[in-house]
């Protein structure tokens, strides 16, 4: 009998600590499926962030290091420069990448570091209980925007793909989502491309993934998936923001 579906080799068989309905589990699965399919688990070094994915090294079955909050792109730079033939990727949330680590991501991208970045945008700080993230939508209620995010006081949602698209070191930027089977399948393609670009030594690739966070959003999982589609995507439209596919 032919086996047509199984757990990715790169994903450990352990119970993870993500909340019910969380998008992280889906993205972990996609990342590890891609690593298996590209047969790169023996040369991959992952960098876990500070945030909900802080325990990623307990779930992934390849070499993984932690990094201080927001610093994964700098740590990735330090690894990749020493081991240019390895596959180095960071997995970061919106607080890690788009708030405390904004400088690190912009400069790693601008230097064209040959790394892959998986960026989870769920419009909130999940790990600390649901505060305003740089990507929190206008009007969205969080612990620190109890009356809704107000542009006058809190500024605007930060659009990372749009922001990075002007940088010359970047070869690939795409925003996807994991709120529907169709979007999940497409996200896998985008992740695969981000890793393939690195294998081909092309440059900096980032996939921004809109990810549902039903527990913090105080929604049922189905409702949360719908909210991604109907509300989040208005501020964060899906699409390819850059794809140069150039050789350097």
């Amino acid at each position, binding site marked *: 009998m032919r086996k047509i579906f199984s757990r990715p080799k790169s994903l450990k068989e352990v119970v993870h600590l993500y909340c019910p309905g969380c998008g992280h589990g889906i993205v972990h699965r996609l990342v590890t499926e891609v690593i298996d399919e590209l047969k790169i688990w023996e040369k*991959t*070094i992952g960098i876990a962030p500070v945030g909900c994915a802080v325990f990623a090294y307990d779930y992934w079955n390849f070499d993984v290091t932690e990094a201080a909050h927001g610093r994964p792109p*700098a*740590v990735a730079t*330090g690894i990749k420069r020493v081991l240019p033939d390895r596959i180095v990727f960071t997995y970061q949330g919106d607080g890690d990448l788009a708030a405390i680590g904004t*400088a*690190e991501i912009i400069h790693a991208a601008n230097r064209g570091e040959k790394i892959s970045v998986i960026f989870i945008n769920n419009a909130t700080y999940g790990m600390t209980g649901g505060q305003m993230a740089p990507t929190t939508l206008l009007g969205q209620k969080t612990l620190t925007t109890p009356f809704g995010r107000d542009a006058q006081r809190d500024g605007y949602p930060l659009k990372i793909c749009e922001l990075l698209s002007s940088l010359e070191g970047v070869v690939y930027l795409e925003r996807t989502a994991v709120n529907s089977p169709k979007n999940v399948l497409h996200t896998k393609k985008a992740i695969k491309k981000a890793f393939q670009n690195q294998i081909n030594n092309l440059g900096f690739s980032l996939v921004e993934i809109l990810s549902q966070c039903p527990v913090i959003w105080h929604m049922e999982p189905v409702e949360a998936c719908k909210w991604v589609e109907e509300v989040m995507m208005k501020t964060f439209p899906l699409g390819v923001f850059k794809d140069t596919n150039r050789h350097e």
Partner: protein
Amino acid sequence: MKRTERILMKGNEAISEGAIAAGCQAYYGYPITPQNEIPAYMAKRMVELGRIFLQAESELAAINMVFGSAVAGARAMTSSSSPGISLKQEGISYLVGCELPAVIVNVQRGGPGLGNISGAQGDYFQATKGGGHGDYKVIVLAPYSVQEMYDLTYLAFDLADKYRNPVIILTDGVLGQMLEPVVLHSKEQRAMSNEVKDWILDGCKGREPRKIRSLLMAEGALEEHNWKLNEKYSKIKKNEVLYEVYNLDDAKIVLVAFGIAARVCKGAMNIAWEKGLKVGMIRPITLWPFPEKIIADTVKRLCSTAYPLHRSPAILVVEMNLGQMVEDVKLAVNGKVPVEFYGRPGGGLVTKEEILERIEKIHQ
């Protein structure tokens, strides 16, 4: 190049050469005075040697690039001056927590705040007492000559690897800018990464996957980790204390100073001897581990010698700050003899005359 050849170098350049000789594979830095000669020198030499030089976007990024290169098994270094070192403290705490080797150079300037760009010794506490968050120690080496800038930087890489712990070179703007002849031990490049590091992340081919982390949430896990680190600190304290002593045998007054202040003290001590004053000196080279035993032993000997009542022995600590190392000296002396302090903060350079004046005052 022959071993005996002496070349004229700036302190900051000697640090760079020491790192290169020690097999530093990656250097990450950010401009700040008075250490700018280090990134400029490394930008040229590291690239010539096919090694890694990168000017980071910030001190935070630089120390975390060092973290990444250490994770990957490379000998890595960053350098800065006081305000920049404050920014690196987060990264240093993570390096210790993750047991990663690294060399961090602090060419101190006056503080607090932006301060000035004169040489100073105001970061002693920060370097020797941890500096960042958590309960930890880093090895701190304090050169007092351009030759030692070279020698101790070379040593720092070995110590960092031996203990899997960061090492700080704590020097200052005066030594960084000072020109002196230096003997380079060997022009041959040390074989890189010849020592087996069985903990690095370089892809799990042929072995189990590894993880590097300092987050230990399980009950008791972090305490256990800290006790394990403490065992390492005990070993370092036992094995790695470095100091120099001068004229201790007949001394009645003993100076204690490190770095550039020790250099000035040595001059003051020599004048004192010409004047017939029996002055000795202890110069800590490792500020952590602190050479407390030699101080305690010296005090014991001072106390066992008979002196006229009105002329009791004393220790004089000289620093270019408001009094930091003096606290460690007092702990070592443990109240057995008076400990006097002379210091100048904010980039004020102590002079031989000022020190001599204090010596004479104690002698009276």
